[in-house]
């Protein structure tokens, strides 16, 4: 298993966000986390990336326990990419500088090499002419794709995507989803929290339904989204269908 979460617990005050949650992700696997707002999807991703500290349980990456307090969190984060709902590009840097910051500063790679790699990515996405512009000149979809490239140039073992399309206008969602689909075909291991059920169905190898801080049901997308066994999952999906999102 590439990622292995066992009995993970996270509380904010009295509120239990993750309640002994367990989830395994194999290499090259794409797992979609679905569930209502507040079900713990984002919190789980933040805990895996060690941006939030867990209150019990263990998380392992490549067999190594990353929740051991003696471990260097900076070294772990270098192996995990995280893409945020609100892109979080650095507004004072050009697109190119956003992408090359971590490779040059963290991974100590040569500046011209990382720049060439970044340009290859931008050309592939049709954003090469935006390399010298600042993020506020880009559309949401363009910003989010730059944010994904920023995570990818570090060659992460695992990519975490936190509701990466929820802040986008509907017509811009497609370009981001296409990019994620391409990453899957290249074998990237991904865990994505999403509200896009249709997309989860297409791209995920496995769908996990989170409810009240637990994985209530998981399995192939056709089964979980098409014929769920848990009443809670059914209830959630029927609301999604009512809203016209499936």
């Amino acid at each position: 298993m590439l990622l292995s979460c066992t009995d993970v617990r996270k509380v904010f005050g009295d509120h239990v966000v993750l309640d002994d949650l367990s989830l395994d992700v194999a290499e090259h696997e794409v797992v979609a986390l679905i569930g209502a707002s507040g079900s713990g999807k984002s919190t789980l991703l933040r805990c895996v990336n060690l941006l939030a500290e867990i209150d019990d349980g263990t998380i392992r990456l490549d067999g190594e326990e990353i929740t051991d307090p003696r471990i260097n969190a900076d070294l772990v984060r270098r192996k995990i990419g995280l893409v945020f709902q609100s892109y979080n590009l650095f507004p004072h840097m050009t697109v190119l500088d956003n992408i090359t910051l971590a490779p040059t500063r963290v991974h100590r790679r040569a500046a011209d090499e990382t720049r060439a790699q970044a340009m290859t990515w931008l050309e592939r996405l049709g954003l090469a002419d935006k390399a010298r512009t600042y993020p506020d000149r880009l559309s949401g979809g363009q910003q989010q794709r730059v944010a994904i490239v920023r995570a990818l140039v570090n060659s992460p073992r695992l990519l975490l995507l936190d509701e990466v399309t929820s802040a986008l206008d509907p017509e811009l969602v497609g370009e981001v989803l296409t990019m994620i689909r391409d990453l899957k075909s290249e074998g990237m291991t991904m865990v994505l929290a999403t509200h896009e059920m249709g997309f989860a169905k297409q791209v995920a190898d496995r769908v996990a339904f989170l409810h009240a801080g637990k994985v209530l049901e998981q399995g192939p997308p056709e089964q979980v989204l098409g014929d769920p066994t848990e009443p809670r999952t059914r209830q959630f999906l029927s609301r999604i269908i009512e809203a016209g999102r499936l």
Partner: protein
Amino acid sequence: MTYAPSERQQERIAFRRRQAIRSVLLAAGSTVVVGVLLTVAVTGSPGWPRVKRSFFDLDTATKYLPDVLEGFWLNVRLFVVCAPLALVLGLLIAILRTSRGPVAFPVRVLAGGYTYTFRGLPLIITIYLFAFGIPGLRLQGTPDVVVLGAAAIVVTYGAYLAEVFRAGIESVHPSQVAAARSLGLTRRQAMRHVVLPQAVRRVTPALLNDVVALQKDVGLISLAGSIDAIRAAQIGAAQSANFTPYVVAAVLFILLALPLIAITDRVTLNAVRAQNAGA
């Protein structure tokens, strides 16, 4: 087909032009009226001839201008040295105050105590304490009073500037730090490459404002006994029994401040525009 404004649009343009001419004329007229009223009020006042003699006496001004100018050169040099030092000190203290970890605890406490003390302490007292207290210790190699007075100014303004920098650092949204850390940047790298550049940009107007204030307060060095523009003017005023040398010094300080004030206003305006542009 080339675009030609419609008749209605041409009418609008002509109307707006007439309005613009009208407002320029009105502004010019009201300026003249206010100017005349002010002149009449001041020069027509019963004490004006005396005030004119003791504050605006041309002979006294020309006589003491070289002395005041020579003293002013000390103020200029003090400003050029003190302003960058105070900025560096302020930035350093702000970074120390926002540092984390148990090892940094005493540093945080000291930095906090420093800003509280020197923001509360009147600059005049700080200058007295530095310029007269430190030589009183009779230590080897005690520097000149000018250096001690300058140190008092740097330490006082460093405390104000530290708070401005800190406000800037804390105004950068935590999601920016999260993004930097998620890329594997250490706390220090995130501070240097992501937080500080944004923080400094945001607080530049406030920093410049404090630098303008510092520019005038270098005049307080005269309290330490150094002959700067203010002390030279004081000596001139005592010799001639006339206040004109002070006015000479005042004009010099204003002239020195003008460019910086203009820059500050422009930077502030640009910052406001940049912030509203995104919305």
